[in-house]
């Protein structure tokens, strides 16, 4: 899965979870400040990404810095895709 596919998967999962379209987000878009997600919606988003990308989320390894922006979340997904390979 290349970078643009990962970002596209994240925005698709966001739409699924939050029940709205996110057509104008970029890698710099901040999850909490710009999209107004809370910790529960971020965890729910992770569950969707787990389902749609095949990564396995380890609750113990979660760090807040993974969820600052769409880009840092994409980094987290890519890092875990590498592990699962």
């Amino acid at each position, binding site marked *: 899965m290349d970078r643009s596919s990962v970002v596209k998967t994240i925005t698709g999962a966001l739409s*699924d*979870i939050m029940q709205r379209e996110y057509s104008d987000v970029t890698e710099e878009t901040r999850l909490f400040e710009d999209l107004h997600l*809370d*910790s*529960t919606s971020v*965890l*729910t*988003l*992770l*569950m*969707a990404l*787990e*389902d749609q990308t095949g990564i396995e*989320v380890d*609750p*113990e390894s979660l760090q807040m810095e993974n969820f600052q922006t769409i880009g840092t979340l994409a980094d987290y997904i890519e890092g875990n895709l590498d592990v699962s390979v």
Partner: protein
Amino acid sequence: MSSRVTTLERIAAYTPSNSVPIEAVGESLGLHRYVVRMFRNIHGFDRLHEDAQLDLFGLVTAAADLVVKATPDPSVIKYLLFAHTVLDVTPSHVDAADVIREALGLADADAFAVTQQHCASGLAAIDIAGELLRSEDDPTARALVITGEKPVTARFRVVNNTTILGEASTACLVGAGGTGDVVRAYGTKTQVLLSDGVYLAEDLVTEFNDNYTAFLAEAIHKALSQAGLTLDDITMLVPHNVSRLLWWRTLDELGIDRSRAFFDNIGRYSHCCCADPFLNYATLRDEGRLVEGGLYLLTSVGLGATYAAMVIEHRGGTA
């Protein structure tokens, strides 16, 4: 006022035999499948017990009856304290505590509810019961602290998308200066901004979540300090059954190894309001895991918010 210590003479716990996976509850409540997945994979909930045919009084008396029947002379029970999370568990013209008192045949007991501290009301009721008994001249006087409620509304079955609720009831026969397990200390931390319970505004939910681990740690340290103990003295943490992730963070804050905390019932029963610490203590006893002379740290947190911790010394009796 005497100096007799509060003692737990006998504890009973009841859960309905019907156990369902949380996915069944999620489906009935219309929760998003990824929210349910979060409850399972992140927070550690697996199943819960419930019985739609059992009403509130049937649930509560199932545990309470066990204690009353095991008490040789139930007339020693002078107080019945019904601790519950939801303020109104019956229509306003029904005094639930008094209905339960009558059902248990406790003609001479004063019955009342303890509820303002929500899920922390159970531990508060133990503390209150001890104070009431110390004001009695009769050292044989006892109090019965009972818990149990039906999470019947959607708002109450899933709290703030972090906790999912099941059904359980407990009963605890409390003495002052008795031979049962000793209450060594009771510490609380109160956060005074959050009196709306499950109807908290979003910003207050965030505030509650942000302060949770630090405030709970503060209550625990307060109880330990009262008892002249340190965390190293504690045999086992007996927690309330909320998010496993939240607990891991709290343990990290406290510096307690996970092997010294009892989390098995989070998956088995989910969160059962005020019943949790008593239910978990009874499970440890029934599994033969309480040791004589062991010190157990019971906790509860009630929206509102009250963070509570109680240190119990197990004497090896029937409690």
